């Protein structure tokens, strides 16, 4: 899967309308989220999506701003909520393309309940987590994925070791699990495109460095540590996915690419009636019969 140069030119054009102009973007210079933004535009273009059919649901934090920097419908709710809103949107209108764009704190701390159950429910929603290990917008407090790669000879309740989103997703039953790096937008775009084509809940953990508050997990640190998933890995095998994660863990590395992909059979779903002509003049008899 590759993106053509001509398409790239039109990508910026279509996806920059109805959005905050680039000079007003409020991310720090060097923020990893720029890479995610570029990769998203590439992926949308690659899939030939039409902006009005896309709904971007942002999380709270720097990452959530991305919905305003792209064309398409955008919604921004409460902290931890993106996946639950997305669930409702998809249940009401399965035709919409829903992409949730959230941070690691939003998804794995306050929103972990919604994350775990999204893995189980498997709505046709793409989740891209911009994982930087810190709460950037509130000036750098540690998130659940914080401390990645640091040595924890001892730990405390206040500062537990980081946990692995990929293992959590796998354990919770997610059907598409991948990892990408915003320092490599071209590869990330390919992963996103695959995620958006997945007929179920697709989770992409994107390492997106915070250059202001996380001085440890830098671009160079990730480049050194991230390795592509081996070409012979079978992503449709759950056992292979667990083994792959264990193997990377043993070697102190993290995988880049699709770790697991195995769609679940789902019932066909129709759009919920929304317009007066679909709602009026219904027959109440089936309900009333039960009360005789």
């Amino acid at each position, binding site marked *: 899967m590759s993106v053509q140069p001509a398409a790239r030119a039109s990508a910026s054009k279509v996806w920059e309308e109805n959005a905050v102009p680039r000079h007003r973007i409020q991310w720090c210079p060097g923020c990893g989220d720029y890479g995610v933004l570029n990769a998203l535009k590439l992926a949308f273009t690659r899939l030939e999506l039409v902006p009005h059919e896309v709904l971007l649901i942002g999380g709270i934090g720097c990452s959530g701003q991305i919905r305003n920097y792209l064309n398409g419908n955008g919604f921004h709710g409460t902290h931890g909520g993106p996946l639950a809103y997305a669930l409702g949107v998809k*249940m009401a209108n399965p035709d919409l393309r829903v992409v949730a764009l959230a941070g690691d704190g939003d998804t794995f701390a306050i929103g972990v309940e919604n994350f775990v159950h999204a893995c189980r429910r498997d709505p046709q929603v793409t989740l891209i987590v911009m994982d930087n290990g810190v709460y950037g917008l509130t000036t750098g407090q540690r998130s659940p994925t914080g401390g990645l790669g640091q040595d924890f000879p001892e730990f405390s309740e206040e500062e537990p070791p980081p946990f692995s989103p990929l293992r959590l997703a796998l354990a919770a039953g997610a059907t598409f699990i991948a990892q990408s790096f915003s320092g490599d937008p071209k590869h990330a775009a390919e992963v996103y495109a695959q995620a958006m084509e997945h007929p179920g809940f697709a989770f992409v953990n994107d390492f997106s460095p915070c250059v202001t508050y996380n001085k440890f997990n830098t671009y160079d640190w990730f480049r050194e540590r991230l390795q592509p998933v081996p070409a012979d890995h079978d992503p449709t095998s759950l056992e292979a996915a667990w083994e792959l994660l264990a193997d990377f863990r043993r070697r102190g590395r993290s995988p880049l690419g699709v770790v697991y992909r195995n769609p679940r059979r789902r019932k066909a779903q129709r759009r919920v009636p929304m317009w007066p002509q679909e709602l009026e003049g219904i027959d109440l008899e089936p309900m009333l019969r039960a009360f005789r």
Partner: protein
Amino acid sequence: MAGRLKVLVGGVQLRDGVGTVVDVVGRIATRAGLHVLANERNYASTIYGAHQFDPLLICEEPPLSHGDDQVDILVALEFDSNPDAPQQPNRDTILRHGAHLRDGGVLLYDASTGTVPTEALEARGVRVFPLPARHIALRELKREVVKNMVVVGALFRLLEFDMDQHYLRALLEERFARKAQDLVDLNLRAALRGRAVVEEVLRERGWPSVGYRLEPRSTSEPLLFLSGTDALGVGAIQAGCRFYAGYPITPASPLLEFMDRYLPAYGGRSLQGQNERESIRAALGASLAGARAMVGSSGPGISLKVEEFGLAGAAEIPIVVVDSQRAGPSTGMPTKTEQADLRMAISAGHGEIPRIVLAPSTLEECYTLIMDAFHLADKYQCPVFFLTDLTLAEVRKSVPQSLFRETVRIVREGVLTEEDLRRDGFRRFRLTESGISPRIFPGTPGAVFKMSGTEHDESGFVTTDPPRRQAMMEKRMRKMETYLREDARGPQVYGDPAGRPVLVGWGSTKPVLLEARERLRAEGLEVAVVQITHLWPFPTHLVKPVLQAASVLIVCEQNYSGQLADLIQERCLLPTRRILKYNGRVFYVSDIVRGVHQIVRQGIGEVRVAEALPVPVEAHEGE
């Protein structure tokens, strides 16, 4: 029967089948054209073992309210020993409710483990019928479950009702769907055995009858027997609700079950969230995608949803929130009634948002007012709170089927089409005179929206510029002025308030206040009743002119502080007196009548209705 009969069925929760007996009797009486009202279903928040009772009022004409706690027929289904009184089986129902049994009433009890000393009751003229229902079921019919049908048969004999088993047979055949004829026959045999026992007692004691008699009446149209929650559910679906989300909680779970059962047939979807927040978030998602959406919960669940109310207000997403109030605080008494969430509904959340609070006062209004709730949510793009309470949610009542013939016209205010967009362009939060901005649903060609709970400009982009913030805040809150001008409804007024004491209520207490009014009139005291259904934004301009004419305002509420009374004082600057009850039981007409006398004649400002503890079991000396 003097037009009105109250039967109270009591027993051990889950074991004795109190619910089954009441359901069968209620349904059959309704089919026979009688008006049934079961307004006070008393159960505990345990599955098994607690004392449960369910009073059932059967009338020839629709009753005004459930009246007093006095009963005509007491049915005690406990068959074995009360652990507190091993020598006195079957005492719990009799101990708790014997005092409410009217002189000359009837006691029917399960005598499977022996008879009960009932001299005290008999001295008051009560006719006692020991019925070994469990023994008959277990030993003669070999199926313990049919003991309830033995009781139903006995009860019908006492009431000289359905002697040819016409109604009972029809109900049983439907219930077993003609698949198990032997089950139908077994149940009918059980009913006949119950009847035979009563006949024997009547013969032995030489009583010709017990003085109660139910007669089927012909009605111009069929009556339905359903709960307030059922009526609300029908109304919601008729009003276009196609997405419902809830999380199990008493007493809102039946709404979730109703929607699970019926929404799919109308193309809608119902979701049991993994928690309260997932529920409302999914509903908000469905709503912004264009579906008419509703969530339901009770106090503790509403508390958990509070953050999302703020979002719905700020991002201007329509949502109907049903709060089936129960007794708080915290998890309080999950199965007992209270009206203490008014203050929460009008103010829950940080900051200020436009919101509308409605409270139905009867089962019929659960059906009609919920339609208004959906209309208002759509029109004003804000949360609409629908405050029912446990009493309203669980009341079961016979209503004519024509109640459900209301037609609705579904208006989707301010939704732009592709043509509108081409002509006018689109800003999601356009500053308008009315405060209501045009909107689109995602997927509409020609435009996209940007919506956010963060403060935003007209296009939906984040901003904290003071003038933009101020304009947006004022735009949102202007909706409330528009609402007060166009859609606020004044109170329902019964009688002329001028110069008289006025009883003011909200929610499920209205029927009781109306019956209290009749009773006070019979005693020579004329009062008026004012019921407020549209509670927020408070329609001061409609309420104050009505209330200020009164000689004294008596606000009757089931909470500790008098939340509506405070609201009236705050908004109308009128002093109020209060009758308050918060022990978990419903108001009885006598509570109100007594309270009014105390206030009007003795000048008491605040009456707190209390109830005596159940009579303690006498312990033997030395224990």
